[in-house]
């Protein structure tokens, strides 16, 4: 297939999938133009592979809105490092995808441009915040997509949608051009139809970037070599991630996956990560604190819509721009973050959360230092929930990330891979690896992917 044919096909698929509301910006003309550029390159690493991109990653030629009214129509004058690397490797940027506003959410219901539908059951959510990217991969529109994680925003929707979601080690992929939410947690992350698709994209976008001071001075994440089994590997099962009230379908799927790991030569051991139960509250202090500063720049002074009533003073300009431009979840987090950093509350909240973050990370380090190569857990406590089910209960929504967000706090790599279905809905299993062992983690995910009938009902 020529790159032009690929571009035409992906355009048709995007058109056909428009009911999912997964995309915010794309055009057939732009795809055709990109295809011509890629064809002119001759041979390239990705050879016209279509990759969808979450709309909080800066691209040239299309808007970058973060799913927010406050950036409606905003076009970045520069491109993210990951996008530049994808283009240089011959990828097609297929579409900018819908997301929870500023990546704040777990269901992609908090977009200013409407919710994204689950490809299997339109009444359900695809997870979030990278729900648009997850849905496009799950619907077979693109083989891979970029999302971003601050607290599980790729692994959780990957689990809900039955695709692969990889969150690399913090610092392995440049954040330059990723619109900041919680900078110490934010990671450009990757969805793939398969582990191999995700790994190819991750390999392309990772590696040192002088434009990001937190980027590691390391080569790109190496491709997995197609390991056959788990022999020689010790896989830890952290007891805190298998609570008694775990959804029965999720439990059945993870039990089957653990059995497969054993059958394939893995040594499975129980471990404990006692501080992980504090991961959600810790996350919901640190991420909003950083967000409250990161989102201060949207003040209507330099860019983005600024439509104050006539004759307001400076404070009026700020109040109206931000009050009208941000949705309720974003406002909630800015307020939370401002509160936990304020004078008199800093030590009780932000300071304590930082100490807890260290304790959570130390748990992981201890387990890995004790001879465990990888951890395996369910990715989410349930399968995809119904739209509207948790929108009135922020805490219930936050708990959808209970098994994923400790990994972000610890800066570790994590991957979700489909391990079966429960009542027709995908269940995801998660491998967590030591810092910078991204490739070993992808090897393990590949073994499971090749050996489990992931679209089969487990009960």
């Amino acid at each position, binding site marked *: 297939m020529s790159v032009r044919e690929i571009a035409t096909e992906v355009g048709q698929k995007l058109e056909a999938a428009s009911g999912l509301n997964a995309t915010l910006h794309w055009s057939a003309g732009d795809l055709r133009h990109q295809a011509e550029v890629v064809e002119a390159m001759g041979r390239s690493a990705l050879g016209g592979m279509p990759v969808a991109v979450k709309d909080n990653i800066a691209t040239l030629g299309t808007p970058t809105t973060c799913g927010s009214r406050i950036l409606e129509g905003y076009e*970045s004058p520069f491109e993210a490092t990951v996008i530049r690397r994808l283009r240089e490797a011959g990828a097609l940027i297929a579409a900018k995808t819908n997301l929870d506003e500023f990546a704040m959410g777990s269901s992609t219901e908090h977009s200013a441009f409407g919710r994204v539908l689950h490809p299997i059951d339109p009444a359900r959510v695809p997870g979030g915040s990278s729900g648009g990217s997850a849905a496009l991969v799950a619907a077979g529109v693109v083989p891979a997509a970029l999302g971003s994680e601050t607290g599980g925003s790729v692994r959780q929707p990957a689990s809900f949608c039955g695709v692969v979601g990889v969150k690399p080690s913090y610092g392995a992929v440049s954040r330059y051009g990723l619109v900041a939410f*919680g900078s110490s947690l934010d990671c450009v992350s990757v969805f793939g139809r398969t582990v191999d698709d995700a790994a190819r994209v991750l390999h392309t976008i990772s590696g040192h970037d002088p*434009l990001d001071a*937190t980027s590691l001075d390391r080569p790109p994440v190496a491709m997995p070599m197609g390991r056959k089994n788990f022999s020689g590997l010790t896989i830890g099962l952290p007891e805190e991630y298998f609570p008694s009230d775990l959804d029965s379908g999720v439990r059945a799927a993870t039990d089957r996956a653990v059995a497969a790991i054993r059958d394939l030569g893995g040594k499975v051991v129980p471990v404990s990560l006692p501080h992980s139960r504090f991961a959600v509250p810790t996350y919901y202090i640190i991420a909003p604190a950083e967000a409250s*500063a990161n989102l*201060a720049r949207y003040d209507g002074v*330099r860019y983005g819509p600024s439509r104050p009533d006539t004759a307001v003073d400076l404070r009026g300009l700020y109040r109206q721009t931000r009050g009208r431009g941000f949705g309720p979840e974003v406002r909630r987090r800015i307020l939370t973050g401002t509160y936990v*950093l304020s004078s008199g509350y*800093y030590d009780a909240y932000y300071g304590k959360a930082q100490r807890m973050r260290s304790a959570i990370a130390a748990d992981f380090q201890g387990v890995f230092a004790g001879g465990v190569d990888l951890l395996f857990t369910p990715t989410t406590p349930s399968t995809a929930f119904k739209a509207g089910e948790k929108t009135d209960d922020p805490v219930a929504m936050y708990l959808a990330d209970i098994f994923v967000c400790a990994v972000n706090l610890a800066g570790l790599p994590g991957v979700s891979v489909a391990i079966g279905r429960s009542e027709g809905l995908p269940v995801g299993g998660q491998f967590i690896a030591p810092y910078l062992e991204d490739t070993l983690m992808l090897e393990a995910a590949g073994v499971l992917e090749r050996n489990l009938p992931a679209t089969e009902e487990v009960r």
Partner: protein
Amino acid sequence: MSWETVVGLEVHVQLATRSKMFCGCAAIFGEEPNTNVCPVCLGLPGALPVPNAEAVRLGVRAALALGCTIHGTSIFSRKNYFYPDLPKGYQISQFDRPLATGGQLRIVSPERGEMAVGITRLHLEEDAGKLLHDRFPGMTAVDLNRAGIPLAEIVSEPDMRSPAEARAYLTAMKQVLLYAGISDCSMEQGSLRVDANVSVRRVGETELGTKTEIKNLNSFANVERALEAERDRQIQVLESGGRVTQVTMLYDAAVGQARPMRSKEASHDYRYFPEPDLPPLVLAPVWVEQERAALPELPDAKRVRLGQSYGLSDYDTGVLSSEVALADYFELVVGAGADPKTAANWVMSEVMTGYNETGVFAVQPGRLAALIRLVADGTVSLQAAKKVYLELQGEDDPRVVAKRLGLIQVRDPGALEAWVDEVIAACPAEVTRFRGGEEKLLGFLVGQVMKRSQGKADPKGVQPVLLRRLRG
């Protein structure tokens, strides 16, 4: 009962880098608004800061020059507040883990003489932009050229006891920063800014009084004036039974008074927290030591050395070391063979006058040394030498110029005798009185000879000839 004034100063100094603190934009003053900007210093979504190594080096150098302890690990923090000149809604600064702490600056207090003022801390930060209120009628414009320019903030201990001492501190600080090549320290261009904290207390009291902070001080003279006015105000408040309230004030140079800022402008909770976009700033001890070794001689050391090496007075060494260039020039003149004290006198008069006017040295040090030698050996008079100095240019030989100007002193006995004889003939009354015992007329007669020779006669040669003729 008398009052004691307590002053502490915060100095913001622009580090003399080519580019900004966290991006590659040029750090230049006076360009068209919003021309030196990029996604990073505009705070565009997705842009990230990367520290400028040269700014870090200059900050370290400044801290070393002030005798501070450099911290192997320091941390950038975000200082959060909303203002249109602050593109990200926070300023990247350093808070609880600054680059350096605990130094001192030696100053000469007008009241207390030589003393040390403690330096509490030095930290790195980025500048904000600038609001232009006079560019468009009824509107305020924002110029972000300055946003992201690297600054060092240097905070002193409350060690100064008068407005004049505060000014002496600033003069000494500027000297050190110029010597060490940290900044051009131009208050007009905003590359050196001062905030002053002042309080008063009864003499003998050990607790500090409530302080006020004065901002918008645009010259060292205004710092002194503003502190005097604020000191007087505080004393008046306290003497009339009132209490000083802790406020931030803006100095208005036009009326010579500081007015309190509106509380909204002043009451910020900055919500500092560690900047997650930047890893801790870690400095290798070996590198810091290299920077310490590379520091040039600083004003204090130079003063002491000039005194010891050349036997100059404290006054002379103070003037000569006020600028590196002056001291260097002086040492070159001495190196070319001039007597140090004579060279110092020349540098502090003729040379400094010209240098202050033009910013350059008109006469090469070697030529000035040659001119000084011509005076020493009596070839020209000091008076004549000053005329020669003003005519000297480039490679000119002072002797040739003196000759061209007819300023070489005449010592030929025949020529001197001829002028003496003319004077004796022209002034019979004075000659008679001298011979009659009025010896003080000798000076008058020498002067007449000098006049007749148009200043060319060597005064040392004239006197013996004159005496011989008068008494012979």
